[in-house]
């Protein structure tokens, strides 16, 4: 496979797989933070050590019998163009930290893009598994498999009282961050989300907009993840998150039912208007595009709009980010030019999708 596909195809192949609860849960992610013993953490290590750490993992993946199972490609950050890195960030395959850092970072990426192993981010190793729909346990089991495989060849920094030792004490213990992306338009429309977010926070979970810390909820997509990494087992952390997500799914469904009963016409009007905007506009800003895409996705879920794939939201939210737009048009774009390109791309995508179906 050519590595170009990582930068040119907006939809990772893992996203196309069927999954449970995928009407509301877009994806599940597990991340494990690990460090090598006998090396300083990326906060303080020297350039030589940084290069050495990448080499250590390169050797692990070369000699390991499992390499073929994942088909890992090594991408060194120093070899990538800024735009390529931005695209990987927009696809959630690497973190903005790794893209911007100067730690000679690297990423081992599986062909299906469901496994991304970051080297020299805040920690020496960040193993990340992505699954469609609500599949946290499946993602955890894959991440554990990868972790066990790597651990056969390297010594992790581990302490029996503190667990896996990480650069930042917020990750120490399991080093596990479990998160799900949820599309919650009805909870937003009925304003219940403002009541729900503080309640979720009290349970030790964090709710964010999709592009990480501090970002707004673009297109009614929320990321929910665990805050605590110490004192609970990996399975318990995942089970706790899972049960909150299940409750949110139930609440979103009942909010949708309530809206359907009380404001059916208004809902229908909103969905079709948004569809109209996406199908016809010539200039569109990302905020408006995200909102309309969210409405259209809800329209698909409610059965108003037929012949469009459910993936349209995940796909276009990624494709209409600045990195992708510029990749798609083959060069840098000014904000106004991006808005034009975004509108064109969305129109094209809607037509293609309709034709296929």
């Amino acid at each position, binding site marked *: 496979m050519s590595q170009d596909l990582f930068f040119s195809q907006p939809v990772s192949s893992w996203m196309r797989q069927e999954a449970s609860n995928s009407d509301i849960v877009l994806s599940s992610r597990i991340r494990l933070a690990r460090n090598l013993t006998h090396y300083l*953490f990326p906060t*303080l290590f020297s350039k030589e050590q940084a290069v050495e750490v990448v080499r250590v993992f390169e050797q692990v993946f070369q000699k390991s019998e499992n390499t073929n199972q994942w088909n890992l490609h090594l991408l060194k950050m120093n070899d990538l163009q800024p735009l390529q890195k931005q695209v990987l960030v927009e696809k959630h395959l690497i973190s903005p930290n790794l893209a911007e850092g100067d730690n000679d970072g690297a990423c081992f990426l599986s062909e299906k893009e469901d496994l991304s192993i970051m080297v020299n981010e805040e920690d020496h190793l960040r193993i990340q598994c992505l699954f469609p729909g609500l599949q946290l346990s499946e993602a955890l089991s894959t991440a554990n498999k990868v972790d066990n495989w790597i*651990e056969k060849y390297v010594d992790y920094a581990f302490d029996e009282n503190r667990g896996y030792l990480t650069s*930042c004490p*917020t990750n120490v*213990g399991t080093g596990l961050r479990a998160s799900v992306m949820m599309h919650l338009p009805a909870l937003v429309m009925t304003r219940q989300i403002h009541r729900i977010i503080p309640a979720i926070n009290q349970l030790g979970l964090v709710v964010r907009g999709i592009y990480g810390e501090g970002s707004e909820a673009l297109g009614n997509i929320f990321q929910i993840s665990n805050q605590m990494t110490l004192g609970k087992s990996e399975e318990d952390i995942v089970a706790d998150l899972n049960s909150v997500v299940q409750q949110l799914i139930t609440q979103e469904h009942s909010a949708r039912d309530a809206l359907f009963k009380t404001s059916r016409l208004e809902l229908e009007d909103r969905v079709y208007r948004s569809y109209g905007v996406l199908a016809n506009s010539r200039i569109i800003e990302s*905020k408006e595009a995200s909102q309309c895409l969210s409405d259209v996705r809800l329209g698909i879920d409610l059965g108003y709009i037929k012949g469009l794939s459910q993936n349209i939201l995940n796909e276009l939210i990624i494709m209409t980010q600045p990195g992708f737009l510029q990749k798609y048009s083959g060069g840098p774009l000014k904000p106004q030019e991006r808005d034009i390109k975004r509108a064109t791309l969305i129109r094209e995508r809607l037509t293609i999708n309709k034709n296929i179906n």
Partner: protein
Amino acid sequence: MICQQCEMRPATLHFTKIINGEKTEMHVCEQCASENGDTFSFSNQEGFSINNLLAGLLNLDPAVTENYKQQSQEVLSCPTCGMTYQKFAKIGRFGCADCYKTFERPLIPFLKRLHGGNYLHHGKIPARIASNLHLKKELQALRLNLKEYIEKEEFEKAAELRDHIRLLEKKMNESREEEA
């Protein structure tokens, strides 16, 4: 919404700052943002990162700083990486695995606050360490038993247990050598 700076173009970048519960919002257009350079740049958002937030917590927490002051005479910096507590409190990140031992005392109350009262790991153990850890825990328990026998003057049982402990210790050393 119109840009707060030029008051001409539509605002496309929105910033929210919350300091001491006071919320300040800022809305600017991309042009003003890029003219202002670093003020709004991506990397500058570091200022709001979790690490800086942590650093704030560390500096402000009197329990932690007091605790640290008491022992600061003994431990000034990490012998392995040279990280000082002051620097850790500033950047919120450790320099190496040994920092966890070096700063253990001030760290524990801090970990409790971060992790819902927990400061002990209850999760996965790397397979290669697991067998040894199991032995270590067993040895700890047996040594306690041995002490009890001696206190109760049950020397015959104590001698039996002592031999068993020696056997386990030998086993543990052997597995360590194998690893090395």
